[in-house]
C-alpha cells in the first residue's frame, strides 16, 4: 500500500505487513510511532486536512481507527456493528476523506458504501439569539448564544417602552443572524493561498466550482446540526487538550483557540444498498465498477 504524506510534508504514514501502521519522519526516516493491528490495513491511510488525525481501517472487520498524528494516541474507533445488525464485513478497498475532513467514505467487500461525518454534535439552540461567533471558548464548533435582550419587566404588561424594546431586540436578532450567515459564507469560500512559485493548477471540468473549500477551518457547524446522529457503542474518544495541541509542533498560532474537528467521534450519514464487491481503489470522484 502506498504511504501517505501529511499535508505539511513532515510525517509519512505506512501500513505494512505484518499488520501495523507506522509514522515516520519524512525528512530523516526516523520511525516516530507504530500501531500494531489484528489484520492488514489494505485500505491505506488517510490524514485529516488539519494534520492532526490519521485514519485507517482494519481490513478483516472494517474497524475504523482515528489516531493523533503527532503522538500516536488513539482518539476513537468505530465499526459497522454500530449501525448494522449483522456486520462482519471486511474492507479491502481504499477509502476517501473529504477535503474539509468532515466526511469519510468507505466500502466493504459486499459493496455496501458507508458514509460518516467526523465529529460530535452539540445541541444547537435554534431559538436562542445567535451571536456572530462560530467557535466557542471550549474549542467546540457551535456559535455561542448571546442574549442581548434588555432588562425588561414583562410582568407589568405591554407598554410603549416595552414595545420599542421588543422591536429593537427583533432588529438586533435579524442583524446578528445576517452577519452570522455572511461569516459562514466567507468561511466556505476562503481558499488556501499558495506561494508565488507554484503554477495554479487548472481545475478539471468536472470539479464543482463551489468546492474550493477551506481545509484548515474544519467542518461547518451549521451543517453539522442538520446531520442525523447515531449512537456509537465503542469507547469514548480521547480528547487532546488545547495545551497539548499548541505545544505539539506549533500547529496553531500562540494565543488562539485550537479547533480540532477531527477530535470528534464519527457519526453515520447513511449506507447504500449493496452494489458490487469493492476491493480496489475507491475514492471521491472515481467511478465505481458495477
Amino acid at each position, binding site marked *: 500500500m502506498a504511504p501517505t504524506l501529511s499535508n505539511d510534508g513532515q510525517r509519512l504514514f*505506512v501500513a505494512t505487513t*505484518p499488520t501495523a501502521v507506522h509514522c515516520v519522519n519524512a525528512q530523516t526516516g526516523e520511525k516516530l510511532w507504530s500501531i*500494531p493491528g489484528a489484520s492488514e490495513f489494505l485500505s491505506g491511510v488517510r490524514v485529516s486536512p488539519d494534520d492532526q488525525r490519521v485514519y485507517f481501517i482494519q481490513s478483516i472487520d472494517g474497524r475504523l481507527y482515528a489516531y493523533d498524528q503527532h503522538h500516536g494516541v488513539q482518539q476513537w474507533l468505530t465499526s459497522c456493528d454500530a449501525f448494522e445488525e449483522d456486520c462482519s464485513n471486511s474492507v479491502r478497498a481504499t477509502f476517501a476523506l473529504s477535503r474539509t475532513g468532515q466526511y469519510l467514505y468507505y466500502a466493504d467487500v459486499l459493496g455496501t458504501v458507508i458514509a460518516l461525518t467526523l465529529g460530535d454534535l452539540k445541541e444547537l439552540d435554534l431559538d436562542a439569539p445567535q451571536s456572530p461567533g462560530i467557535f466557542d471558548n471550549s474549542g467546540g464548533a457551535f456559535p455561542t448564544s448571546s442574549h442581548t435582550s434588555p432588562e425588561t419587566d414583562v410582568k407589568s404588561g405591554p407598554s410603549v417602552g416595552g414595545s420599542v424594546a421588543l422591536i429593537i431586540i427583533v432588529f438586533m436578532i435579524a442583524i446578528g443572524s445576517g452577519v452570522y450567515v455572511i461569516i459562514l459564507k466567507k468561511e466556505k469560500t476562503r481558499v488556501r493561498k499558495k506561494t508565488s512559485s507554484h503554477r495554479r493548477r487548472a481545475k478539471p471540468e468536472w470539479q464543482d466550482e463551489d468546492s474550493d473549500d477551506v481545509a484548515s477551518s474544519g467542518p461547518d457547524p451549521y451543517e453539522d446540526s442538520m446531520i442525523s446522529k447515531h449512537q456509537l457503542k465503542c469507547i469514548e474518544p480521547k480528547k487532546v487538550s488545547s495545551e497539548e495541541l499548541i505545544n505539539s509542533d506549533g500547529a496553531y498560532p500562540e494565543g488562539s483557540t485550537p479547533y480540532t474537528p477531527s477530535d470528534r467521534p464519527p457519526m453515520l450519514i447513511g449506507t447504500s444498498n449493496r452494489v458490487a464487491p469493492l476491493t480496489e481503489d475507491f475514492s471521491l470522484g472515481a467511478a465505481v465498477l458495477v
Partner: protein
Amino acid sequence: MGSPVIYQTRNQQTYVVLTHNSEEMQANQTTTKTGHFSLLRAYNGQVVWTEAEWGRDTLPMGYGPPGLAPSPLSGKYHGGEQNQNDFVAWANSDQDGMRSSGYTYAFQLPENYLGTENDISNLASVVLKKVRWTSLSRPVFDEDGSSMYIAGDGNQVRGWTGNTYFDNAADWTLDLSIGVDGTENLSGTYLERLRNACFSTEYSPLARQCSDSCGTYSVQ
C-alpha cells in the same frame, strides 16, 4: 496495475497516464509479465503514446502503479531541471513484489510539448535507477514534487528528500518489519499472532472468534 492518474501540462493540456501489465508467452511456454506505460487524451481516451517494457534492454518484470507530482518546481532528475510539467514515477513490480531487483522509472512531457506528431515521436520514459527492490504501491510526493517516497517489498520505505535527485540513491531507507505485538517478533502463524493481538483468552479454532471490550468480530 491500472490506477490511472490525470496528467496536466503547463499549457493546460490534460491527459490520463497509467501503467498496465500483460503476460508475454515465452518460447518455453512460460509467461512473463511485461509492463506498459500509456498516455491517453483525457476528453476521449485516445491513446496518444504507449511504451512497453520489453522495448528495453532489461528483463521485463511488470510495472507498479504510477505516482504523480503535480506542477513540480522542477523535474528532480538529471535532464528534467526546470521542467514544471507534471512528473510521474513508478517502479518495477513482479511476482507480487518478490523480485530482488528492479528499476524505478519516470515520465515527464517535455517543457515545450505541444502535442504535434514530432513531439509524440520523441516521447520516452526514463530509467531513474536500478534498485534492489520492487514495489506494489505508487510513489508519493510532497506538495512541490521535491521529495519522493516509495514503499517497497520487505516492508521497507525509502525517501528522497532535500536536494537529492530521484535518479540517485535514496536519502534514507527504513525497515518496518514488526510483529502485531509491537515488537520485531514475527514468529508464529498468522492466526497465532491474531490471537495474541486479541484481548480474550478464549480462542476456538473452529469459531475463530476474538472478543474485546468493543464487541466481537469473526475471523473468516
